[in-house]
């Protein structure tokens, strides 16, 4: 219940934050954003840094850019949205732009934790902590988002798979780097389906799906699962089965059937409420549900001719 002792430093800017991380490097500093992964870890003894760097007051890290880079103000193009690292879940849900152009993200956010946590938790914190069963890692992976980070060596852009360690490597964020922004490409056909763990509220199984289509044919598919393994994972067999296929329910169902193909139940997470075997079993159902949500949006968008931003 009670965090261990640490020093607290409030950063006034990104540069200041980097400077503080450098200066207190010996204290194993951790970045405090919304605090909804870090503070529970501190209270339960899972983390004991001797210094925290609070980035909560850096306004440059907050906000959803309508085509603009929230940090620099530079236009990042109309085909993606930039989300500042400190943007809360509630802010994401309130964004019509994201609702429309990155529904996989808003879908996942809408079932994330609870009302109070959505008011406080941030996308940057969520992706950095990447708790097993967290919803946003799956959504950002399926969205093919890019995570921009700043560190002692400057700025770099990391694709979600590398950032989350979903490509088999270790998560790419280095010490003394902090997430500044998440850029989400616009794809209307996206959806997320979640079996919520009855106690933790994280995903027992969560599947995020994004489809790119051309005239009723699936040209690209990205399907990612959370809750099953320690890290999020792409469901390659499902994706392979989808690409080139027509957008119709039997295709979806057949593809979703393959969701558990590449995951050994013995490798899957297991607890008192759901064994690894059961989680792998659920994958197909939740993949299908996520894909159906994505397909529904293809259908909803089929009649529309307006370009992005028309209604904002």
């Amino acid at each position, binding site marked *: *219940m*009670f965090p*261990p*002792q640490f020093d607290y430093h409030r950063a006034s800017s990104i540069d200041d934050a980097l400077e503080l991380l450098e200066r207190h490097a010996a204290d194993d500093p951790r970045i405090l954003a919304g605090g909804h992964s870090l503070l529970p870890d501190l209270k*339960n*003894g899972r983390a004991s840094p001797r210094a925290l760097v609070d980035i909560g007051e850096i306004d440059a890290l907050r906000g959803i850019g309508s085509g603009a880079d929230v940090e620099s103000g530079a236009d990042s193009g109309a085909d993606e949205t930039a989300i500042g690292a400190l943007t809360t879940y509630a802010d994401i849900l309130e964004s019509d732009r994201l609702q429309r152009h990155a529904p996989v993200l808003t879908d996942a956010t809408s079932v994330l934790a609870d009302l109070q946590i959505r008011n406080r938790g941030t996308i940057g914190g969520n992706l950095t902590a990447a708790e097993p069963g967290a919803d946003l890692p799956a959504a950002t992976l399926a969205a093919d988002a890019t995570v921009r980070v700043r560190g002692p060596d400057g700025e770099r852009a990391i694709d979600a798979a590398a950032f989350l360690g979903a490509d088999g490597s270790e998560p790419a964020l280095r010490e003394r780097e902090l997430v500044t922004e998440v850029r989400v490409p616009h794809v209307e056909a996206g959806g997320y389906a979640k*079996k919520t763990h*009855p*106690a*933790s509220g994280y995903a027992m199984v969560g599947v995020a799906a994004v489809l790119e289509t051309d005239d009723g044919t699936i040209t690209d598919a990205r399907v990612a699962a959370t809750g099953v393994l320690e890290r999020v994972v792409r469901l390659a067999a499902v994706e392979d089965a989808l690409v080139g296929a027509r957008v119709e329910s039997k295709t979806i169902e057949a593809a979703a059937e393959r969701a558990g193909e590449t995951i050994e139940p013995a490798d899957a997470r297991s*607890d*008192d*409420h*759901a*064994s690894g075997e*059961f989680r792998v*079993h*659920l994958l197909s*159902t939740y993949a299908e549900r996520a894909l159906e949500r994505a397909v529904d949006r293809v259908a909803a968008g089929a009649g529309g001719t307006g370009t992005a931003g028309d209604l904002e």
Partner: protein
Amino acid sequence: MTDRRADEDAGETAGPTRREDEALLTGRAEYTDDLSDPNATHLAFVRSEYGHAEIGGIDTTAAAGIEGVLGVYTWDDIAVSESPGVLPTSTGSLDCEVPAHPVLARDRVRYQGQPIAAVVAEDRYRARDAVDAVSVEYDPLEAVVDSVAATAEDAPTLFDGAPDNVAATTDQGDREATEEAFADPENVVDVELENNRLISSALEPRAALAEYDAAEDRFTVTMTSQSPHGHRRKLAHTLGLSERQIRVISPSVGGGFGHKGHHHPGEAMAAWCARDLERPVKWTATRSANYLEGAHGRDHRTTAELAIDDDGTIRGLRVETHANVGGYGLDGGASMPGWYGGLLSSQYRIPAIHCETHAIFTNTAPVHSYRGAGRPEAIYVTERLVDVAARELGVDPVELRRRNVIEPDQFPYETPVGASYDSGDYERGLEEALELADYDDLRARGREREDGRLRGVGVACYTESTGGGFESGVVRVHRDGGVTVSAGTHSHGQGHGTTYAHLVADVLEIPTDDIDVMEGDSDSIPTGTGTFGSRSTITGGSAVVESAEAVLAKARRFAAARLEVEPDEVAYANGEFSVRDGDEGGSRSGDDTADTVSFADVAGMAYGWGVPEDMDPGLEETTFYEPDGTAYTFGTHVAVVAIDPETGELELERYVAVDDCGERLEPTIVEGQVHGGVAQGIGQAVSERASYDGDGTLLTNSLDSYAVPRASHLPEIETGQTVTPSPRNPLGVKGIGEAGTIAAPPTVVNAVVDALAHLGVRHVDMPLTDETIWRAIRDSR
């Protein structure tokens, strides 16, 4: 009786339901941890990491050196103190001689979380630092956590005095008659089932603020207690004091459910440390500490058989259960399973019942009463067995219940397991529930739903023994006519303040605003048993009513003196005594004699100069009330479920509860009790289970892993009622606090098994998680 509530209920505006509410809603109510004392220190425990281990050594040096740490204690400190330092254990009915639970481990720990050392610091955060700084050397021992496994020959032993880990074996019912019933039965139906271990999970963790007055050699312990006088007795035992030296105050308490009736090391150590340090000591358990230390509830493993004729007539019931009592017998925790069989007859005529109960020590937290305490376990056995029997005989489960239900003219009905049912119309309750649920229509709709899910309908009947023991109730009339009512019960959500005020107002015919209700102070209230076992309205309510009636009788005599008539010539209505119509008051002295005298005037007389010659002054009565026997609540619940066969996902589409708790004094509060009980019962049925790994590590040690129901997990609860007054108390009431936790588990499980029966599923153990249901379906294929 004039109903004082009539006025309050008049009008369209919804007023407050309970007088307790305003303080609770505004944050003004004071719970134990809310009490501020600038001089207070904070106690925290070093708890065993292991389920079973010898303690090699404890190094407290580093902890003691932390700034702001006032004391670090181990058993060695207790041993040289004037206190015995052990928690009371009811050993009378046990078959073994085992040591009681020490407040700090002596040399061995028998469950994970058992306190080993205690630290006291100036603030909570320092106490936490000190806990971290204590290092304990463990020599881990093999652990056993399952009650059946613990009786195996090669199982590790917890206590030398109980070499087979058996705390007690108890018989209930008639073994011989039952064997006869099973000698040549037309059919025998059996089930093997587990009643899952639960954690009561009151939202407020247990807490205490202990103060010691050295000059008086006297303690005041403010604590989260369902039973202030009970805790006074237990604290006296642990501290080696007389009860008169301890005052227990129980302020606002955030839910009890049995857990806050038990005695644990926390409160006792707070007191012990307060004396040692001569400073107030506050102890507030964290959620995980509360989960580790227990007491947990349920945890039975049971085999049961029913002898039944082809025509559905039940002939006999035979039950054997292993009840896990954990690492120590806490209070009566180890002997409690011995009377669990008392409700095995449920609502049925069962000529022969026998139940053998084994209470077993394991390396788990102590087990004790949790909302229901033995009754849910017993009813679950019978109601599952009846359902299984119906299916095997090919009759509707409801029809089988109708065939065996105890008839209204059979009351009082003596069961073979020692229960004497007071009153009831069980079949009417059943029919009401079926009608409310539209059972025939549900049956007609069949199992397959249009959406591919499987529909199941479950019905369970129950009885509940309520209102044991005595209670005190005081009605004190002040000189101005104001009234203070007190009782030895304690309200922590049940709204006694509202109920008792209404009861007394009804008798005294004065406004409830003139009545205060006080509970939870062992110095101010003569004595008490406390609030548990659905007993408060029956015992506390009857006690305060009897006191109020005695007060009114005495007031009438004062009034008669003033009115110069005989007491039986005095009429009383709406707070005013007058000469009864038709009685002309022939003895009255003249025109200047008062025609009426108010209740407040009478109070003034009682404490004024010149009390009438044949009367004693004062207007206050104390009643120690014990009911004329147990009141048996009963009812029938119905659940409708839909199951996704692919995922095992369970939706509780409907939940219908028809309960008969006799007279309903406060219908809204009664319904609230039903809702809450059903919610906890559904929690047991679908998601809650305290689970340990083989080493005795509690896997569900927080709300991240122990799944208490959230709002979205629960259905709308549809309630109905029948009213059969109890003849065993003057109010005609029966308790309702635990009905839901008793009825809901078999109701939900019966519904789920109903949905899956066509697949060959006969029984599924709780909790019915998605995976459990999915496996039941898969394994049946």
